[in-house]
């Protein structure tokens, strides 16, 4: 049981909390404390919008230990609206419908379960943004 390991990254996994560099304004995810753009210290928390688009994707047929029961599942590099790339699973979408450039948004889902008495690890996944979802929300 790696309780502390999962607990200390809950901010990034549940809410996409990264950092913003106080020196150059670079938005950073995952958090890394030293700005990759200007190499100065960057520890100011910044919560990302969760909006982005698919940069690349792959459907996994041969899964690592602990993920076998989910296979096949689709993973992606997502370009967040604020700039960084993030690696995550896609959800609520058929593999054959995924395209490079497809708009997606972050949701919180179960990443893995370690048996009946083990931990349930939650984290971010991304799902397609419905074309008319925004319009529906505006009508309300």
């Amino acid at each position, binding site marked *: 049981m790696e309780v502390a390991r999962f607990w200390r990254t809950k901010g990034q996994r549940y809410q996409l909390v990264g950092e913003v560099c106080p020196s150059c304004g670079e938005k950073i995810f*995952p958090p890394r404390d030293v700005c*990759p753009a200007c190499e100065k210290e960057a520890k100011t928390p910044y919560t990302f919008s969760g909006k982005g688009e698919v940069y*690349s994707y*792959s*459907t*996994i047929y041969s899964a690592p230990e602990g993920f076998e029961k989910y296979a096949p599942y689709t993973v992606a590099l997502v370009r967040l609206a604020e700039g960084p790339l993030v*690696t995550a699973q896609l959800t609520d979408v058929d593999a054959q419908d995924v395209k*490079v450039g497809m708009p997606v948004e972050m949701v919180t889902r179960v990443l893995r379960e370690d048996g009946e008495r083990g931990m349930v690890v939650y984290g971010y996944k991304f799902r397609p943004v419905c074309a008319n979802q925004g319009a529906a929300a505006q009508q309300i």
Partner: protein
Amino acid sequence: MRDVSIIGIGQVKVGEHWDKSLRELGYYALHAAMKDARLERIDSLFVGNMLSGELTGQEHLGAIIADFAGLKGVEAVKVEAACGSGAAALRMGYIAVAGGMADFVACIGVEKMTDKQNASVTSALAMAADGDYEALHGLSFVSINALLMRRYMHEHGYKKEDFAPFAINAHANAVNNPYAMFQAPVTQKQFTEAKMIADPINLLDSSPIADGAACVIIAPTAIAKEFTDRPVRIRASAIATDTVAVHDRRDPLFLEGGAISAQKAYAMAGVGPHDIDLFEVHDAFTIMSALSLEAAGFAPRGKGVALALDGEIGLSGRIPITTMGGLKARGHPVGATGMYQIVEVATQLRGEAGANQIKNARLGMAQNIGGSGATVITTILEGF
């Protein structure tokens, strides 16, 4: 700094060695290399290995192999840099001999992968990636390379089958390598129909899980001829790093670590890509061959696959790669792979490559890659 040469090489056949343990594999390669160099004693031993703890329950490899080989009291440590562990071990040995701290150093690469089931090995290999931000999300190491391949196809307009020449070339060359795991050719049809692992990467884009060990003995060039008629000079050895996670790279399709380590190596040797007679690329996946060729300056951005399609990577092409089968067909025992590459380049430069001999080969290069480009070791060797 002293000039350094390889005075002995040794390797075991890559494969599924159910009957041999990790320490035995390491010892066989070491013994073969010491015999080749007519040596009975070494000063230091560097063991390149990635996953011994995870896959065989054994760490502390320096001492365990030194002890098993009967080298009582010798300096011995393990070197780990994921799939780049093998060439990293050579780099450490090179520093020791060049710096005058040791005269005779054995550098081994060894890996034992077939004691565990497939899913366990897949998880273990994902440790080369970012544990918290890639592997935790269910990404296999294959899938990370698949993300690169898909984007490469998208940006440069290639089709999946365009990558076949890398696998076909590697298998064709492995036919004549008695140490290769797969001494059999593959066809374009087999490539197209192979089982998908992580779309678009299929089984024939991928190098196989295997057991293996390879070893070189290095010594100062000034005394190399006392031990061998065919010493091979180390003209350059350079390591560079990049972000471990692919998502942290400004441009995921450019192996910056590969470019930096190649540039360092070229500067050290005073040569350029046009001087290199053969290039052992880290073809863990077909996409890695393309990215490595581009990073090392053999093809412009997006043209690595075109180089293969134009037939320039074969034994008589402009830049022969994977001349003894590469990771794809010789096999990819991860921590041992970098040392197999060195042994193969040395074999070519000694003129011992048989049917696969590159004519008049003088300068050979190897690029060993840890992770998806996070650690890259470029080595340039010269035959006498």
